[in-house]
């Protein structure tokens, strides 16, 4: 057992996918030529005033509901001051006292709850672009709506932190309030980490690692920081409270500023924005708009649809894949067949996270549904279905384009027994083996039946019948 336990809390910034910015009507679209998505409000011109975008409030409330938070029916905006060229007003409009959401949680697969302290809304800063020795400011991102999700110091390992982030990403995507793309910066994470001796209750001195933009970075930064702090503590030293920067290239952290130089944000209530009030009617509407969340969906797939746990996990990881699965499995007898086709053949073809997230496969869910129904009605065999599905994925054409007459002859269930008897007669060794307790020997006999039927027989039924015939 390690001497020190790591204690971690996360602050995650998530860009909300509203059409317009949080305080003006500029588009939030990613990309765009520099400074084409900005106006007097998001560049902080004198006399400009922010007008709070109601959609931002609603998206944030939905995020809060999905993360089991209490929604504060009255919250207030606040000014957070710091001087940097990416902040044109020299303050960020955020929330401090009375945030929009408080007290939620995310459940890890182990059953451990990660508690969420608060979620508040705020504006993103502009982007500094370094160009040949010069620094240029692109205000397109300035004023894009963010939620900041702050957890309690509940994590005890890097794995827990990354699992939480993955869950967070899946939940927010399922609710449709953010695309949570770390590579585009629409999900960014700050890590607060401290160490304490195992069994000790008091928290150690923490360092804050800023702006981590991939799951790998989060894990690497935590591991590095653990080792760094452990080394200090083991040598009898004291960890300084400071803000640290993570270098993704070297996998190390370095000091950004210490406690003495920490910013004094001078928060005070934003006088330009009236308090945010959520009426009953709005809260009810938003509650009813929360879709089934990934964990609930996974449980339903396993328990009600008989999908294997691992497959269900893959399907529910991506909102669009889950939707596709449900359409493909609609009205079929064995939904798990649809799951298998997606998780094996389709995922072999569609491999990257981004592609799976965007999910626009060559075969429509209706076409897959049709194929499964052909299979279930015994018009084609499983092997034929697999082959044809491969061809469908290559071409985007429906199953009927590839089914030959021979494929469609189907299999007459009445011919199963003669085939089984032949297989038993022709493979006495396997029969003996099976009789002497080698369960696996039956597979050789099933294989013989399948070959004889050109793959059209139902293997499960063949196995049943073979056992029955051998056992008399």
């Amino acid at each position, binding site marked *: 057992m390690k001497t020190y336990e790591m204690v971690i809390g996360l602050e995650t910034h998530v860009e909300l996918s509203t059409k317009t910015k949080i305080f003006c009507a500029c588009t939030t679209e990613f990309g765009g030529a520099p400074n084409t998505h900005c106006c*007097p409000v998001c*560049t*902080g*011109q*004198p*006399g*400009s*005033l*922010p*007008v*709070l975008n109601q959609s931002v409030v609603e998206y944030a409330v939905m995020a809060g509901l999905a993360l089991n938070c209490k929604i504060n029916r009255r919250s207030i905006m606040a*000014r957070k*001051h710091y*001087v940097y*060229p990416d902040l*044109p*007003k*020299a*303050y960020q409009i955020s929330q401090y006292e009375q945030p929009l959401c408080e007290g939620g949680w995310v459940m890890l697969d182990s059953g451990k709850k990660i508690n969420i302290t608060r979620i508040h809304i705020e504006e993103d800063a502009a982007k500094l672009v370094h160009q040949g020795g010069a620094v240029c*400011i692109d205000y397109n991102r300035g004023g894009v709506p963010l939620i900041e999700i702050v957890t309690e110091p509940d994590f005890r390992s890097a794995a827990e932190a990354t699992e939480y982030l993955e869950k967070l990403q899946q939940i927010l995507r399922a609710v449709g309030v953010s695309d949570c793309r770390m590579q585009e910066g629409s999900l960014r994470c700050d890590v607060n980490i401290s160490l304490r001796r195992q069994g000790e209750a008091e928290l150690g001195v923490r360092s804050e690692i800023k702006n981590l933009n991939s799951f790998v970075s989060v894990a690497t930064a935590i591991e590095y920081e653990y080792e760094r702090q452990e080394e200090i503590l083991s040598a009898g030293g004291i960890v300084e409270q400071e803000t640290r920067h993570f270098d993704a290239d070297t996998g190390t952290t370095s000091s950004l500023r210490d406690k003495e130089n920490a910013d*004094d944000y*001078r*928060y*005070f209530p934003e*006088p*330009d*924005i*009236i308090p945010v009030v959520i009426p009953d009617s709005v809260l009810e509407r938003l509650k009813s708009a929360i879709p089934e969340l990934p964990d609930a969906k996974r449980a339903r797939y396993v328990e009600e649809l008989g999908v294997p746990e691992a497959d269900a996990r893959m399907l529910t990881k991506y909102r669009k894949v889950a939707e596709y699965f449900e359409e493909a499995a609609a009205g079929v007898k064995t939904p798990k067949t649809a799951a298998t086709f997606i998780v094996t053949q389709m995922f072999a073809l569609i491999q990257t996270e981004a592609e799976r997230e965007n999910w626009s496969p060559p075969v429509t869910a209706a076409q897959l549904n049709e194929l499964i129904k052909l299979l279930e009605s015994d018009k084609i065999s499983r092997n034929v279905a697999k082959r044809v599905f491969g061809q469908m994925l290559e071409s985007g054409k429906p199953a009927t384009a590839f089914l030959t007459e021979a494929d469609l002859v189907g299999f007459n269930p009445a011919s199963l027994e003669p085939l089984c008897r032949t297989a038993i007669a022709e493979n006495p060794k396997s029969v003996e083996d099976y009789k002497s307790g080698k369960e696996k020997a039956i597979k050789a006999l099933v294989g013989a039946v399948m070959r004889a039927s050109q793959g059209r027989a139902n293997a499960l039924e063949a196995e049943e019948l073979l056992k029955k015939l051998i056992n008399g």
Partner: protein
Amino acid sequence: MTTIADIKRLLTEKKASCRELTQRYLDAAAQTNPVLNAYITLTAEAALDAADAVDKKLQSGAQLSPLEGIPFVLKDNISTKGIRTTCASRMLENYVPIFDADVWESLKGQNAVMIGKGNMDEFAMGSTCENSYFGGSRNPHNTEHVAGGSSGGVASAVAGGLAVYGIGSDTGGSIRMPASFCGLVGLKPTYGAVSRRGLIAYGSSLDQIGPITTCVEDAALVFDAICRKDPGDMTSRGAEPVSGKLTGNVKGLKIGIAKEFFEGLPDSIGKALDNAVSLYKKLGAEVVSLDFPMLKYVLPTYYILACAEASSNLGRYDGLRYGYRTDDFNDLNDFICRTRSEGFGPEVRRRILLGTYVLSAGYYDAYYNKAQLLRRSIVVEFAKVFTGCDVLLTPTVPVTALRFGADMTPVEMYQTDILTCSANIAGLPAVSVPCGFDEKGLPIGLQLIGGKFREDIILNTALAFERETSGAFCKDSGMGVTL
């Protein structure tokens, strides 16, 4: 003094074209501004364009809207697209806004004729208008004296006959004080009645735009023209028009007098106020004595809140996007520091420092938080006041116009706001009306404070006084345009 109705009559009776009248004001401004320093920028082109549009309309026989064709002055902290808006600061000396303030948008839409942008204390911080980067404005009644602040240029232009009315802004008395010093009517509307969009912020929770005029009816007309609920200002709520409601009848009206507002007044002001009270009694109003013990907390509360908000609002002037920039610097931090040190005047720097201090960790609870609590108590105190009376009558300023260049400490200067800033703290409407002259002949103002959105009551009370005294206290300065 010239009123909106006077100009309207000339125009509708075709005694003069709007262009001729406008030109007369422009000429007078060009001639007299070197003395009064009321205008920072003259906007002849915009004025004449608007005048021509008005003349065309008159020729077609169309009716004019209330402010159409009337020459006016706009305080230089109200954004005018394409026309420089300086806030009387070196920081914004050459700043040209890319959008219009809501009030200017409204007025422009009505062919209001803007003669120019009015001088002011830098960023509206001051009580004498001497804190202007462009030099202070003079009082037309005696140019050895100040016009008052911060909307001094607006009051100076109107009292000096260089505009018929003016639009100022009031954070702690910046409309009412210069109105009082220059013998004019100045209305600070209820917080939220007029949109602040495009008003360059000083203290966002206190700032309000309003009129400075030569008579009460004009104040009502201008108020009606500029108040509206603006979707671009979340704190704006608009207000009901008041002009049609004014009768000048105060019979049965309860006028509250709180002794705290009358402590330590010079004799001349005390006497003018006594006369006003007697006159109201004569007109059938009931005078009620009451207490306002919170008055002693008003000034510290105001200066903590106003400076806190100012320190935040003025953080954006870093020279990166607009405004003054230093040309001698080592790095980014140095650039921002020097730009701000050189671009802001001493009073602005002082208030930014004060505001930063009261918001800092460790001092927040002792200052800002306490001031917020006091603000709530002051609101409650006013609510109590208005259960016992309809309107509170006070002097506007405990002094008359100070001598230009008088040597005062910042604290002495701040104390001149003591009677006006409570209305800003509570967001209430208040009007200053001329009610006398001191021994030097400098105007004295009386202030009427009303309940929220009761501009009708305070203006009606003011109108009763003005009518009964036949406007004797709105004395012509003898300068500028005489019709």
